[in-house]
């Protein structure tokens, strides 16, 4: 299980990244996360929706109501220009962290090595 802080920190970049692949709606986003993570990452909507709200307010994403086939309302989210930039920034940061972790964990390039 991932630590709570890490989940919280990673949610936003993950949502941004998922939306990078095209507009999506809440339920689908949660499903995607579960599928991609192989069930290791379980999001609940009480945590997602307020985040979406927040991101929309910050201008990272835009939402739009759509009527689906079975006449159900769905709110679709897509990235804005600012959201795309944010996603790239976040991605770079996570890559960097990842890289640092790789270096620290790789004995070949530790100072002693």
């Amino acid at each position, binding site marked *: 299980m991932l630590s709570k802080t890490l989940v919280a920190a990673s949610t936003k970049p993950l949502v941004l990244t998922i939306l990078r692949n095209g507009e999506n709606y*809440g339920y689908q986003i949660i499903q995607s996360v579960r599928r991609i993570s192989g069930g290791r990452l379980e999001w*609940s*909507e*009480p945590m997602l*929706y*307020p985040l979406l*709200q*927040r991101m929309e307010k910050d201008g990272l994403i835009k939402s739009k109501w759509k009527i689906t086939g079975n006449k159900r309302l769905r*709110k679709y989210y897509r990235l804005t220009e600012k959201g795309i930039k944010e996603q790239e920034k976040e991605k770079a940061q996570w890559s960097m962290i990842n890289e640092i972790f790789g270096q620290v964990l790789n004995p070949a390039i530790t100072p002693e090595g």
Partner: protein
Amino acid sequence: MSDPSKEKKNVPFDLEQAIARWLKLLRSKPAIQDGDLAELEGYLREKIEDLVGQGLSEEAAFKAAESEFAPGEALGDDYFRARNTSGFGGRPPGQPPRFLPALLWHYAKIAFRKLQRQRAYSFINVAGLAVGLAACLLILLWVKDELSYDRYHEKANRIYQLAMSEEIGGASSELAVTPFASAPAFAAEIPEVETYARLLRGSPLAVVEGRKFDLTDIYFTDPGFFDIFSHAFLEGNGQTALASPGALVLTEETARKLFGQTDVLGRTVNFNNDYNLKVTAVIKNVPTNSHFQFNGLVSLGTVANRAEIREVIEDWSRVTGWVYILLKDRADPRAVKAKMAAVTLKYYGENLRQSGSKMDFWLQPLTDIHLRSRLEGEIGSTGDIRYVYVFSLIAAFILVLACINFMNLATARSAGRGKEVGLRKVMGVRRGNLILQFMGESVLLAALASVIAVVLVGLTLPSFNRLAEKTISLSSLVGGGSILALAGLILLTGVLGGSYPALFMSAFKPAVVLKGNVGRGVKRASFRSILVVFQFSISIVLMAGTLIVFSQTRFMKTRDLGFDKEQVLVVNTRDAAARRGAEALTGNLKSNANIGEVTLSSGVPGRVYSMLVINMEGRPEQESFPAWTAWSDFDFVKTYGITIIRGRDFSRSFTSDSGGVFLINETAARRMGWGLEAVGRRIGFDTDDMREIVGIMKDFHYHSLKGPIEPLVVRLSPAADLARHAQFLSLKLQKGDIPATLAFVKDKWAERSERGFDFFFADENFDALYWREEQIGKIITAFAAMAVFVACLGLFGLASFAAEQRTKEIGVRKVLGASEAGLAALLSKEFLKWVLLANALGLPTAYFIISRYWLSNFAYRSAPGILIFLLVAGLSLFIALLTVCGQAIRAAVANPVDSLRYE
């Protein structure tokens, strides 16, 4: 998704209903908007569909999906936070703003219309509050003034009054007057003492360019006076004003009296045809909130070298006058007290040991003198901190009364606003807004009332000042924190007054209210009656208090004092020279047929000031005790109609008397341990001058009835001595033309003395001892009246409201044959029941509080009779009846056709 309606019959679980319930739960969270809700619902449904697709039952699927919301309580908060981390305000976005400026005018309009619509109620509301606030403000002004005493001195926190505890022959007293000899000794030996000022009071005859003025409250003092006390100089300055002998400092008023102007530096004033003084400074009049007042100051050095003064001020055993001490910064008065004890021992210890007496000096802070001093012989009349507390309490009570009224009426009126509340709620107004609206209205009314209250205070302040003997100005209401306090008071009153109706009304359920069957105010009658009972209880306590204060003062004024105080004229002979050969004067006076006995004495009942240690022959010095002392000629007992119970009065036929013999009172005889056998024994102020006791006087009150009768000795004085001591010339007037007799005495006096004719009547003089009680009585009466008025306004409002509420009932009763009198009684009965209850609560409280905390101050007191309580009960019922009756009768005589037709 399957159609839920199909499963309705056999399966108890209904998905749609479950979802609806779930939505309802979420909807109650203000932060979740409708859009959020739709989104969440969509999520929930999709999840359920998925789960059902996986083979779960609808019920299990719903539960599983819903369980994700288990921390759903926090969901609203999450939404709220998501939207609110930036920007201002803590208001969830789903909610309209608490305060829309655009609606301000609307609210004002509604408030104003409400006022107009219900003029009578509004009047009662505003008037009650205004009177209550005015009373409260007046009391606060009074309290503020009482608390401000002596605080205007820059060094107030370092100034102390030298006080002395003295124990002679087992009797102890705490005095504000001390031996002058002590001050220089303390200043020399105790480093903490920065400087001191001794004050000796005089009432000289001033002569300026041949014109004569009787001056009072002139103090002889040390140069340190102006280092200690802060006074504003018009002419001269504090360094030089009292530096040299012969210096005279005048107040502005005295300067104008003597010279007609204040630019009088260097002018000469003669005192008592004895010595000349030069004006060295003119200061502003002493502020009224000073614990002592003076008209002028003379440097003590002027007289300090005269033998007779010197003898007094250098003697540790002579209690001379008042001493003020300025301590250095951060000096500890308790440490100084210990050092003073050491100094006393050093200078005077030997004498104390010999006489077996004790003498302890301590320091009373200047700012405590007015309200907290319990010393005898204070320099001026003092206040009493207890009255400050009592009055503050009364102020709080009256304010609470007015607030209760306000709440009461506003709540009663709420009936009429139920629909308004319902409608507003239907239109989406939230409870908080309603509360704000009602609070706002109430604060508005309170503000209106306070404007009226300030006007009322302005109008009544002059009479209040007369009553309380103060010179408070309305401007002190404006000064400093007062405006803030006032604003706070208004806000508090408004919020307090508006809180109950605001909370009560805002809780109305729109559906019920709009149907029109809630908020007729009947349900809350019990709550309101409790408030009425409370109000009346307070009023009753105040009324009973007033009556008890009056009965006690009356008791003290009418009690048989043991001597005949009627028609005794007393002339205050301030001129020692004029008293020489007073025998001739008395003889002269007696030639007037309207004048009976005449006596010269050093004290008269009500004004016996000196206390001396009495030594008894054949008894050790340790048994000596202090007794009140008066010197008189032969006719003191006759003039005042005092009864001799053993022995005889002073008599000219006993030649031995003229050497100086004693009369003592019963208490003194008991104190001496001889009882009635004291006659014939010898006592004296000096062990080498013992004189016979010729008679015992029946105890009579020569001091206020506040204290018990204490030992008194009267010594017959030779004429020469008398001229020195005897300040008072008492004349027993026969029935007849008193003004003419008075004029006659005045003429005779003028022949002998240049001093003005200063006189009083013994009975008035005695009554004057109770001026403070009377004054307090009057003030309490005024405020009790206000409290009763406020309580009655409240009752009146409720009565008329109740009558209105029951219009229809009364109509029906009338149609069914109820009599008008019966109806009026029916309506009044309920209120009278409450007032009776209030009596049952208020009277014992009043009895307890007053007998315990006030009456206990008096050695002689009238037990508050049952009559007083019956009177209060009767009065309160009568007032209540009067208040309620009008409304009841009006309702009762109304034509039932009108009341029943009206729908």
